């Protein structure tokens, strides 16, 4: 059973990994511009596995920020993972072992989370390990290539690759919106509010990570009050494989 789940995770991980390769390639270019070597940038990707968090970190390293500053920045840009980890913790069988949770905690991010949470019923940790096994090397390799050969690519290719990340986000939220009118509403409101906050001077001065946290807490709480989820809806999504 576990071997089967692991190999299913490997298969689901392939498109995630390819997407990561493209996205982390642009991340590698950012790292190089920030003054990191290919080794340092790749090491960061292997250890951190966070797109927005790493962008923020590389920018702060380039600015020679203090260690505490970078720690706080990282906590803010990655705060959404607190919520994802809470959700994953609920999705795992209550009896799952501590080491399962310690390993999963190494790679909670938007895409793998999206696939894991879309599982029917409880989440098998080995399915998750399978996805990690394929996705993490893609993330690290892309970063390495970006820092080492990124400058060789023409600017229009780099520009095209940089939307890959958003494509992956859309692949999680749009199919769910098709199935549920409430999620469709939540997605539309979130995008509109995110756009509005960027235009309103008071909020525009906030870091984008802070705006995301604010929006997430307010809109998800509003949706939870107005449209509480019943059990059968919660398990309504099918397998992504």
């Amino acid at each position, binding site marked *: 059973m576990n071997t089967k789940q692991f190999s299913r995770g490997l298969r689901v991980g392939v498109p995630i990994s390819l997407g990561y390769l493209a996205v982390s390639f642009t991340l590698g270019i950012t790292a190089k511009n920030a003054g990191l070597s290919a080794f340092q940038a790749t090491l*960061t990707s292997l*250890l951190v596995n966070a797109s927005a968090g790493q962008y923020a970190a590389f920018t702060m*390293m380039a600015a020679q920020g203090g260690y505490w500053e970078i720690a706080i920045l990282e906590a803010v840009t990655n705060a959404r993972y607190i*919520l994802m980890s809470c959700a994953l*913790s609920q999705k795992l069988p209550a009896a799952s072992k501590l080491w399962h949770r310690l390993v999963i*905690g190494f790679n909670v991010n938007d895409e793998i989370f999206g696939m894991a949470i879309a599982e029917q019923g409880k989440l098998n940790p080995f399915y998750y390990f399978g996805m990690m096994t394929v996705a993490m090397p893609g993330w690290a390799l892309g970063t390495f290539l970006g820092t080492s050969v990124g400058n060789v690519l023409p600017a229009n290719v780099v520009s095209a690759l*940089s939307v890959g990340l958003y494509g992956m986000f859309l692949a999680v939220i749009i199919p769910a919106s098709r199935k549920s009118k409430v999620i469709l509403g939540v997605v539309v409101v979130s995008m509109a509010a995110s756009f509005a906050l960027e235009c309103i001077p008071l909020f525009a001065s906030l870091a984008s990570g802070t705006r995301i946290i604010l929006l997430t807490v307010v809109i998800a*709480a509003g949706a939870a009050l107005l449209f*509480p989820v019943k059990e059968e809806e919660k398990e309504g999504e099918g397998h992504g494989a």
Partner: protein
Amino acid sequence: MEHNVYLYIAVVALVTYLIRVLPLTLIRREIKNPFLRSFLYYVPYVTLAAMTFPAILHATDSLWSGLAALVAGVLVAWFSGNLFLVAASGCVVVFLVELLL
């Protein structure tokens, strides 16, 4: 003062790991509260939607290619849902639109 890059990386890695692993290990009991459950259910959709728009418009060299990528991505995701196909269609559309501009 010059900061050590490896110390930077260690701080970033540690903070990120703690943020992910503490809820996974400390909140093991099933949350029964319907509000909290619903809240956690909606979180990823809000986060991902807010991170996508309007950021996708600034990601490329031109606003129009970013907008075209958004439209293409939404359409492909609506009808297919394949992760790689959605990501690739966005990239191809940006490339083509920027050739035309």
